[in-house]
Every structure is written in structure tokens, then in C-alpha cells.
């Protein structure tokens, strides 16, 4: 093991823990009715956020779904802005207009937070198109679920991106369920990477519970795209440990199945690896947890105290402000 590997591992672990603890706090805040509406957690899927987003540079673009807390935090959106958005406050990432499902950060090229399944893919294609037309060496990462692969927009976008050789990294977070519908009941062919390759793009099937593997393949795919290959596709096999959303009673999944996936939890998996390689001590871990805990406390306190958007501004942002 090189020190570079150790550093990468530490970063991946820290990102995953940050996302996990953040969402755990969100559950409490949801029960306390501080956070409302639909809230979709990525607990169990953090290796995807940590690994994929790590492969991108600051000029690259990201398009995500309603299950995007992890993507947003890993992209570098300030936790305070994400938390305040979920509280619906003026200091929120989307000025309280979006909530949990619609986090945006134009400066960091984080283009949402799209809650129409597959609705983000065409936008990603367009972002990549513009960057290509302007000769920018950027990649647009587009994250979506296995359910999105059934939508027409998915197939239109795969073809268009491949046809025009656009720099899009399609990242399918295959957590085996689209709400209550299991993968086998939504797809005639469940090998999603294989289907992607039929569009003439390079595709990889990746263990989405292994943060290092995700980081590694994502980095390679991004390099390939920057080299002019056109789009690439990652199928990231993962699992959500929690229900689809806070409204979902999760009656359609087998307890044993959930248990089996929980034993593959990406956070303890990486922690153990690092411990075994003498890359992480108990004190290190306690230190990381303490820092994260403080960051979350600060974000929550700030959100609690933040002002709400005045009702007088109700129709603000419907059109651009012109000066």
C-alpha cells in the first residue's frame, strides 16, 4: 500500500461517513417535522457518492436525482446550505424553493436534484454538448437509478450522447428497486451495463458497495472520456438500506435480503480494510466522527436560526431578474 492509497481511502471513508451521519440526522429531523415533503436517503449507497464524485474536477458538471444528498455533499456543496434547504430556509442551496429533492449549486456545476425519473439525462447531454462545442475539457456526470433505465428518455439520451460522442459519464445507481418494483420485474434484461454497451459506449459493471472500486473505475472512465471516447456508462451495484422515501413502509423487500446487503455496508468494509493495513486507528476514526458531528451540529443550528423566505418573494425566480 502506498501513502497515496491510504490518503484516497481516508478521503473516501470521510466522505461516506459524512453522508451517512448527515442523513441519520435528517431522519431525526424528519421525525421532528423540521424537514418535510419527500425525503429519499442514500444510506447504504454512499460508496457511489464518494467514488464517483471524487473522479471529477471543479469544472466538471453533475446532474442528479431526488436521492442526491450524498452526491451534493460529495460535490462540495456546503452542508449548511444543504441542511438549510431541507428546512426550507432562505439560506438553503435553492432558497427554500426545492427542499430535499432539489438541491442546486450553479457555482459548483451541480445541476440538481431532478425528481422526474430520467428527467436529468437530457440536461446532462446538453451540458456536455455545450462544453464540447466550446472545447472545454470537461465531463458531465449524470447519476440516476435502475428505474430510469426503463424510461424512453434514457434510451434517447444514450443514443444521442453516443452518436455525438459527448463527454457524459452515465452513472446508474442500481439499487435493485424502483420504489416497490424489483429489478427483475422492471427489466426484461437486467444486465444494465450490457444494455448500455449496445449503444456503442464503453460500460463497466462495478461493485457499488466498494468505494475504492467505484473511485478507481470512475477515474478511469473520466480519463477515457477526457481522451475523447464519447460517453461511458457505469452500472454501480448497490442497495438502499432504508425505505424508498420517508413515506414508504418498505413491505416489498425481504428482511433477509436487506440483512445480507447490510453485511456489505461500504463503511465498515473500508474501515476494516484500513485497520488491517494499519491506515486507521481508533483515535483517527473518533477524530473524524467528532469533526463530522460538529459540522452537522453547526449546520442544524444555522438552519434552525436561518430566516425563512418572505412570502412577498413568492414569485421571485420565476423569471430571471433583469437589471
Amino acid at each position, binding site marked *: 500500500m502506498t501513502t497515496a492509497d491510504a490518503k484516497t481511502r481516508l478521503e473516501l471513508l470521510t466522505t461516506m461517513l459524512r453522508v451517512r451521519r448527515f442523513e441519520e440526522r435528517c431522519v431525526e429531523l424528519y421525525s421532528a417535522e423540521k424537514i*418535510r*415533503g*419527500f425525503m429519499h436517503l442514500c444510506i447504504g449507497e454512499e460508496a457511489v457518492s464518494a467514488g464517483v464524485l471524487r473522479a471529477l474536477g471543479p469544472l466538471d458538471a453533475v446532474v442528479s436525482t431526488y436521492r442526491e444528498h450524498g452526491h451534493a455533499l460529495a460535490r462540495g456543496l456546503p452542508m449548511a446550505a444543504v441542511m438549510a434547504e431541507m428546512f*426550507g*430556509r432562505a439560506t438553503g442551496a*435553492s432558497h*427554500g*424553493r*426545492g*427542499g430535499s*429533492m*432539489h438541491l442546486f449549486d450553479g457555482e459548483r456545476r451541480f445541476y440538481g436534484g*431532478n*425528481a*422526474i*425519473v*430520467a*428527467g436529468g439525462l437530457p440536461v446532462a447531454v446538453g451540458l456536455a454538448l455545450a462544453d464540447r462545442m466550446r472545447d472545454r475539457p470537461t465531463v458531465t456526470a449524470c447519476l440516476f437509478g435502475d*428505474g*430510469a433505465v*426503463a*424510461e*424512453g*428518455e434514457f434510451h434517447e439520451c444514450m443514443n444521442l450522447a453516443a452518436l455525438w460522442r459527448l463527454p457524459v459519464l452515465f452513472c446508474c445507481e442500481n439499487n435493485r428497486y*424502483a*420504489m*416497490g*418494483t424489483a429489478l427483475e*420485474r*422492471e*427489466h426484461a434484461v437486467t444486465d444494465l451495463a450490457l444494455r448500455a454497451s449496445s449503444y456503442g459506449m464503453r460500460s463497466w459493471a462495478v461493485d457499488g458497495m466498494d468505494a475504492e472500486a467505484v473511485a478507481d473505475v470512475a477515474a478511469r472512465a473520466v480519463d477515457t472520456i477526457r481522451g475523447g471516447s464519447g460517453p461511458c456508462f457505469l452500472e454501480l451495484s448497490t442497495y438502499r438500506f432504508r425505505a424508498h422515501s420517508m413515506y414508504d413502509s418498505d*413491505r*416489498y423487500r425481504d428482511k433477509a435480503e436487506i440483512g445480507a446487503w447490510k453485511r456489505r455496508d461500504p463503511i465498515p468494509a473500508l474501515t476494516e480494510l484500513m485497520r488491517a493495513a494499519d491506515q486507521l486507528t481508533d483515535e483517527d476514526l473518533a477524530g473524524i466522527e467528532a469533526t463530522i458531528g460538529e459540522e452537522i451540529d453547526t449546520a442544524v443550528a444555522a438552519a434552525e436560526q436561518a430566516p*425563512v*423566505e418572505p*412570502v412577498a418573494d*413568492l*414569485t421571485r425566480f*420565476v423569471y430571471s431578474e433583469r437589471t
Partner: protein
Amino acid sequence: MTTVRTTYREALREAMRSAMREDERVFLMGEDVGRYGGCYAVSLGLLEEFGPDRIRDTPLSESAFVGAGIGAAIAGMRPIVEIMTVNFSLLALDQILNNAATLLHMSGGQIAVPLVIRMTTGAGRQLAAQHSHSLEGWYAHIPGLRVISPATVADARGMLATALADPDPVIMFEHNSLYSVEGELSDGGPVDIDTAAVRRPGTDVTLISYGGTVAKALDAAGELADAGISAEVIDLRTLRPLDERTLLESVGRTHRAVVVDEGWRSGSLAAEIAARIAEQAFYQLDAPVARVCAAEVPVPYAAQLEQAALPQVADIVAAVRAMVG
């Protein structure tokens, strides 16, 4: 005749159940309608009773399964297609407008599409701008469709059977605030889907509402009564074609009208109703027709903003007071 107390959700389920028992051509398809029981639990238990052939879970492919409903209807089935939320119906709008609403005419009367599409509509639960809109007015714009909007338990139970008997496509809107509302159901048989209903008689002003706004109009009428103003409340029930007669008769008695609509004001169903009243009852009006609509903004997440964006009882009361003077 026995009366049972039931919810809007259960009434819808009962309507589907009896339609499926009575007519083997009837089947339900949509996302998570089977194993999951429907995202609003409307079809809960139907899979167990009717099996996966007739309670069909679909992948996320609104255009494909709505279009498949059209094809199946043409070929002699009586499909009920459920779309989770009106915003997602936009992925199927091509099929609804360019096929369902058009085939009969375009084929010179040969190809009828007896399809029922059910979908949830409306805001109020902080679901933000991709899950909260009221696009009934858009659908009511389309010739070839019939658009219905049950606002009561009895209509939830009775309208579906009539819709299924209709030879043409019917779009049924279910406001999310109604599913858990309880009411008395006395008959449980089919009801007409041609006429509007007077939900509360009155003499000073007509409040015209549908779906999720009927309860608000009734609350407003209650408040107005306390202030000595007698408001008549109309539930449109069917949004296309509009039952002009009931509207005009009411306005003929009250001489004032306020249209309450959770859709955006510009180009809205409320605009259409106001225009028809102006065209046909202008000389009977004592005041210009007023409208209480949603603010022209994609529905925001934050509670205070969302509530401000929606028609409220206080807005209706204020609109009436402004015209009654």
C-alpha cells in the same frame, strides 16, 4: 339501502374492484399498482384478488404503458391506467393528446379509445415543483377527452364505472388531499359524469370549484354565512365538457361568481369558466367574475411559500367580500 362510512381511497378501490368483477375486459396497470398497492395505496389488495395479469405493475415508462392502454382499449379491453402524479403524465402527453384524444377523429370515426386514466393531482404537502401541480386545465383544453374530478366519496365510488362505460378516453383526477377524507356512501352505484353539483345552496354569490378546492369553497361559504352572506357552492365534477347549465342557472340566481382553481390563473380552467359566464350571463351579473387561483409560480417547497401559492379559504372570503361590498 345501507349506508357505510368509508374513505375516498377505499371508494376508488371499491369502484375498481366491482368494475373488474363485472367486466373481465377491465384491468389496471401502472407503476407499483400491484405488489406495492399503489403509491397512494388505492389499489392495495387488488393484486391478491385479481392476480398479476389484471393488476399489472409496469416499469417506469409512462409513454409506453399509457400508449399500451390506448392500444388495448382499441382492441376491446377496458384498461384503467394509473399515473402516479400529474407531473409524470407529461411523459405520456404525446400518447394522450396525439393518440387517445385524436384517433377517433383522425380515423373518420372508426377507431374509438375507451380508456380511463387516473392520476393524482395537486399541492399542499411540500413536495415542491415536480410533484405538486394542478394541470387539469391543460387536459380540459383537449377535444376528444372527457375530464372528471371526483371531490366526494360518492363520486370516487360512482364516477369510475360511468367512465369505464364511456366509449371515449376519460381522464380522472384525484386530488392528493382527498384520499383519506371520509364520507357516507349510501348507494355505491354509478353516477352521472355530465353534470355539476350544487354542494351548498345559496343566494348571494356562486363559488365554483372542483376537486381539491371544493372543501375550501365550502369552508369559505361557512365563514361567509356567519357574516350574513349566502354563498352557493358548485362542484364542477366534470371539467370537460363543462356543465354550463348548472353554472348559468346558479349565476342567474346569485348574480355573482367566484371561480376557485388550484391551477395557475393564466389560460386556466378558471379563465374558461369566467369567459363563459361573461359570454352568456353578462347582463345578469352584479359584479365582474372573480377568480381565486394558484399564484403563477412553480409550487415551492417551503411551507409558507407553498401555502401562499395556493388558493386559501381566506382568499375566497376576501374575493366575495370585495364583490358583495
